[in-house]
């Protein structure tokens, strides 16, 4: 506790002039004539696959078609009936290791960079990272232009965790060569519903 007071005291002693917070209202942020189209372009650039499906089509059949060899499928979404493991009911996060396909829901996408917001809506968020292939169900009507708009919509939910994801896990740490599939998902497929 004394460290806290010492630190704050030193900060107060050091500040000579208090600067105003700038207004952000006049920021001319990029908007897109067709945010969905921009989102798709940016998603592909980030390494995501994008599949548009009609609301009446069977998502389960689509996932099966995309990943015919998948054995372990993890999801807690009510519309998914092909899941073999549920991140809400596993005994430990470690049990999700070996998941071939994880299916989760995104709240909205961001046109400028192809990321989508994933609030934790399952007990074990490991499913979002540990799965070899990640499938995101995303409503195509929910695309914002840029991160300013995105952060006005961010909601972490009860679990108190959320993440923007764009494409598969990647690295260029060895000689600046881009490699998809570093520590987390090796592929990301956005299903635009």
């Amino acid at each position, binding site marked *: 506790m004394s460290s806290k007071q010492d630190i704050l005291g030193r900060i107060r002693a050091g500040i000579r002039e208090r600067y105003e917070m700038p207004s952000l209202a006049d920021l001319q942020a990029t908007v897109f004539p067709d945010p969905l189209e921009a989102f798709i372009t940016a998603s592909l650039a980030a390494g995501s696959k994008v599949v548009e499906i009609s609301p009446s089509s069977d998502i389960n059949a689509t996932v099966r078609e995309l990943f015919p060899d998948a054995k372990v499928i993890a999801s807690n979404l009510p519309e998914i009936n092909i899941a073999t493991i549920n991140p809400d009911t596993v005994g430990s996060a470690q049990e999700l290791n070996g998941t071939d396909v994880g299916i989760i829901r995104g709240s909205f996408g*961001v046109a400028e960079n192809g990321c989508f917001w994933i609030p934790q809506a399952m007990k074990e968020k490991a499913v979002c990272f540990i799965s070899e292939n990640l499938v995101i169900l995303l409503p195509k009507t929910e695309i914002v232009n840029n991160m300013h708009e995105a952060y006005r919509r961010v909601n972490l939910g009860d679990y108190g965790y959320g993440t923007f994801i764009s494409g598969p896990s990647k690295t260029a740490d060895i000689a600046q060569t881009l490699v998809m599939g570093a520590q987390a998902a090796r592929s990301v497929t956005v299903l635009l519903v």
Partner: protein
Amino acid sequence: MSRHSKNAKAFLKDAKYSEWHDATFWAVREKRDNMAHGLPEWEQLRQKASQIKLHTLSHLDEYLEQFSAAAEKNGAIVHWAADAAQFNEIVFGILSEHGVKMIVKSKSMLTEECGMNPYLEGKGIEVVETDLGERIIQLLGQAPSHIVMPAVHLTPDQVGELFEREGISSEIGNHDPTYLTYRARLSLRNEFLTADAGMTGANFGIAATGDIVVCTNEGNADMSTSCPRLHIAALGLEKVIPDYDCLAVFQRLLCRSATGQPTTTYTSHFRKARPGAAPMHIILVDNGRSEWLGNPEHWQTLKCIRCGSCMNTCPVYRRSGGYSYSYFIPGPVGVNLGMLRDPRAHSGNVSACTLCLSCQSVCPVKVNLGEQIYKWRQMLPVWNAEPAGKKILCKGMSMVYNHPLLYKAATGVVKKPFHSLKTDSDE
């Protein structure tokens, strides 16, 4: 000859390598330029980012209190570390309390600054770096040569041979980066599943919500915190920003400046511990920062968001490499941070600058890096003086620092010729 000059001379002996180094970082600079030119609002964003930082740093007491209150309300345990030693003790205390033998951690220049890994290893705790570049240099026993791309100085052969020695890769002679990355993935997966605790740094702390925000491309911060029962997050005081509206500005600038991507793959918000886990621990680290804030000429270095773009653009960094500098953070911002840390130990670095000011024209938060290096140079007689004279001069300088008017008088002579170099700093 300064230590930097000697090291740079040695670095340049291998002409092929130094040309490759130069070209590699220039390519990152070009990627950054593509991003900047692609956003018509780029300069406006930089201006706002700079002003938000000036505002936040000059209200840091208020924002830190707001941040810690919000984090505590979320159920986190907030610690305040005055210096590196206290930080290390706090980390060790938490780990001991939970009986932790092995931790996985994501990249953090702060833990590097505090020498945390060797400290914990000395106490018998195994620390596994999970960012691929950090893992590589950890296994080699090296320090990072760049703050964003820590292992970029190594060739695929060097990494491949390392992985063969460590038993990480099995196909001898296969030094393809894709293969090596895959083998590292398999090896690290085991560590993620068995670690007792996960540790992350932070790119931002959000005062309004108490969130810790971590940006990675590999997802290793998320993997590090998805299985272990304990999450410790460490952040320097200057990482706290007011709210999500401000975060949007920095988020848009950070990755575009750092690697030339429109965003990192993951921008993760940690507010609460995961269900069933121990409470999240957040450690706010001072280690000099509160004093630097009181330095009238150099406090703006604290605006830095550690994107690394000042290194990528710096003609001296590109042609001398990260290991030529005496401070653990190289390049323009490292020269300045080293001088704030210990001017006598790091004054040699101030000559590693051509005053081209390319650094401050790319810096996303407009730190006036080159101008500050110029100012540090004016102090060289102080730091380089003979021991007896040095003592008097140093004493004099600390008096001058604490009296802004005296300081102005003392440096007034050198300000004028420099004026023509001034670009776009906010003051």
